[in-house]
Each structure stands twice: as C-alpha cells, then as structure tokens.
C-alpha cells in the first residue's frame, strides 16, 4: 500500500477492502465486526442507552491522546453518565485524501487501547475518503449502546435541594493541553489532556450508592456550562465554592497567560455527580481509589434558591453568578 490515503480507499473497491482488512480489523477484531456483514447483530435486554458524537478535534494528536482515544472515551462517557454500562460502539471515519497511513495506524492503535480499557467492542464501522480540502485530516463519529440496570435512575433533571455536588478531579486540563499545541500560542508544558474512559469509575460509584441523581461530563463549555445545564434541567440552584474546585497550577498559569477562566475550559476525563448528601463521603472515598478520581472533591451543593442559576462563593468571600459559556473561548490581550 502507498503511504497515504487515496480517494480509491473510499470507493468500496479493492483498496477499500484492503484498508479495512489491514488497517482496522487486525486491531479491533471481535466476532461481530470480523463477520463484515452489513450490520452487526447482538442481543440485549433491559433499558438501553444510546448516544452518538462527532469528533473533529484539531490538532488530531495532542499531549495525552488523539482523536481516536477521544472518540472512544467521549461516547463511552456519555453512556456512563446516564449510569449505563457501555457495550458496543460503532465508528465511522471520514478521511481526507492525502492523510498519512502511519498517522491512521497510530490512531487505530489508540482506539484499540481505549476500547480495551473501557471493555467495549467496536462492532460496526465505516470509512469514507473525501477530496483534499474537504475534511480537516480526519473526522470520526462514534455511536454507542449501553445497558442500564433497573435500580439506576440518573438524569439531569433529578437534582434536589440539599444534594451535594462532586467533581472527580482537576478542571481545564484537556482544553489547555489542546491550546498549547495551537499555532501561535507556543507555550510548552508537561500538562496532558485528561482524556479517559470513566465507565469503571461510574460503576464503582454505583456499587457504593444508589442515590446518585445526576452525572455529567463537563466537556465543551467546561464545568460552568455543565453546572448551569444541570441547574436548568432540574430547576434548582447550585452553589459552589471556588476554593474547593481543584485546578492544576499549570492550568492556572496557562489561563493567566491567555486570559481564560478554567471554569469554561473543556475536560475529557472528568465528571460531575449530584447525589444524596448522606452518601457523599462514601462515594468520594470510593472515587479517590480509582485512578481517574484521585483528585475528587465535594465542590458545592444544590439549593432551592435561585433556580436555574449557579452561584460561586469566591476565594475572597463575595459570591457571584457563574453563567454558561457564551460565544467561544477566545484568548484575550486585555
């Protein structure tokens, strides 16, 4: 095979088959996928959760991960946030003509590793190739199906006054790791994206307590946006304490340099959980035993005051509103 993707790789003919058989199948193989039928067949009974997401991150390789890892973790996490055990994923790749095969191999390896860690199988896939310039290197869409056990009832609308708000670790790591690679920003740091599959962390939390009301991963828009979404959905107010929100020093420094607020920077390996106060410390202890929950903290609570709004008690004492992200997160000079 040549060293880069050609249009013919997407035309359905010999090269397409070669691409799937040499570059994808050997690494992702499982009984359903290897059949290469038009659709994968599986059995499942109970309440199912289903989700889909498109991944267009730029740059596609970043400290701590790549678009492949992100595509698996993102969808696995969306399922986990509803308390579902992820079972199967589909993966569709749209590749720009000229994309290096060696890069594709790296990404497929990441996908394999992430899927193995999350213990999910990719049972359906598709690849298309578009002309140079019609896609930015590589776009991936993953859909996922998971199963929710009968006792679990987790939804953004379930928060109640008195609930505690827990955060699984430091915020802003992913967004800043991405920004540090962008043209022009040129700062170097040891910080890595926090991209990670959280389904095992979630199942450990659910083993400990059945009184988790909401969970969400604060991806685009950051922690602030996620808390606002939950407050609105549940029609409650949320109060958090700035001093309790964990932020790495490197992230604080990068945010200072760029004029950003860590509350709005994306995360790809963190979750917010809103739960019954009686179980808060139990759950916190369990989270801290998991590698992705080491930095977990109780950051606030739910109130019936100011429904739909999030208020933060600042480090200095006064409280202020924390709104959703509006517009884009842009570096500023002033």
């Amino acid at each position, binding site marked *: 095979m040549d060293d880069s993707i050609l249009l013919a790789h997407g035309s359905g003919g010999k090269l397409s088959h070669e691409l799937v058989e040499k570059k994808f199948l050997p690494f992702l193989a499982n009984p359903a996928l290897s059949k290469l039928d038009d659709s994968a067949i599986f059995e499942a009974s109970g309440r199912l959760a289903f989700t889909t997401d498109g991944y267009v991150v730029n740059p596609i390789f970043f400290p701590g991960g790549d678009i492949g890892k992100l595509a698996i973790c993102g969808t696995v996490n969306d399922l986990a946030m509803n308390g579902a055990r992820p079972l199967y994923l589909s993966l569709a790749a749209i590749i720009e003509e000229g994309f290096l095969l060696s890069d594709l191999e790296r990404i497929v390896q990441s996908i394999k590793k992430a899927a193995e860690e999350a213990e999910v199988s990719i049972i359906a896939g598709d690849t298309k190739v578009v002309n140079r310039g019609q896609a930015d290197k590589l776009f991936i869409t993953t859909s996922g199906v998971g199963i929710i056990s009968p006792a679990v009832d987790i939804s953004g609308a379930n928060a109640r006054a008195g609930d505690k708000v827990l955060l699984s670790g430091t915020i802003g790591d992913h967004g800043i790791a991405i920004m540090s690679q962008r043209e022009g920003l*040129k700062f*170097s740091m*040891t*910080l890595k994206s926090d991209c990670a599959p959280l389904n095992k962390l979630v199942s450990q939390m659910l083993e400990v307590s059945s009184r988790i009301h909401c969970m969400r991963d604060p991806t685009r828009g950051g922690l602030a946006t996620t808390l606002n979404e939950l407050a609105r959905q549940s029609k409650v107010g949320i109060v958090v304490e700035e001093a309790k929100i964990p932020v790495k*020093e*490197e992230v604080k*420094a*990068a945010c*200072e340099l760029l004029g950003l607020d860590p509350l709005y920077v994306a995360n790809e390996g963190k979750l917010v959980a809103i739960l019954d106060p009686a179980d808060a410390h139990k759950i916190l202890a369990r989270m801290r035993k998991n590698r992705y929950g080491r930095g977990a903290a109780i950051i606030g609570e739910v109130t019936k005051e100011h429904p739909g709004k999030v208020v933060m008690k600042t480090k200095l004492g006064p409280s202020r509103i924390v709104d959703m992200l509006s517009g884009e997160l842009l570096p500023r*000079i002033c």
Partner: protein
Amino acid sequence: MCLAVPVKIVSIDGDEAETEIAGVRRRVSIVFTPEAKVGDYVLLHTGYAIGIVDEVEAEETLKLLEEIASLSEVH
C-alpha cells in the same frame, strides 16, 4: 491595561528569554527589558516582557497590607 503576567526568566539568548510560570514555559522577547537577568521576573504581554517586577516593592506592598489588616482589626 491589558493582561501582563509575571514570568520568571530561566535563560537568556540575546534578545529573547526562556521564561517559566508554574511549569508553563514560553519564549519571550526582552527588547524592552535588556537589563533583565536570569532569575528576574518580568511582566509578559503578548510575547514581550514590558517591565521587570520589583521584588523589593512587592515585599513592601505585602507588608503594608499585613499592617492594614491587623490595624483595621483592632478598631
């Protein structure tokens, strides 16, 4: 106005310096602060050091603030 962040000079290479703040490193132009030395903190604004942080004054300011805090408590 404008954002300027105190960063520490780690090494100097002619007109430029390698700087660091809490583990984040950045190359910075020191054309406006040619007298800056390794170990100095400079104020970084859009890729340029615009001034050197006066550490003595910084200390003095903090001392003043401590005094104010304890005096205003007494009243």
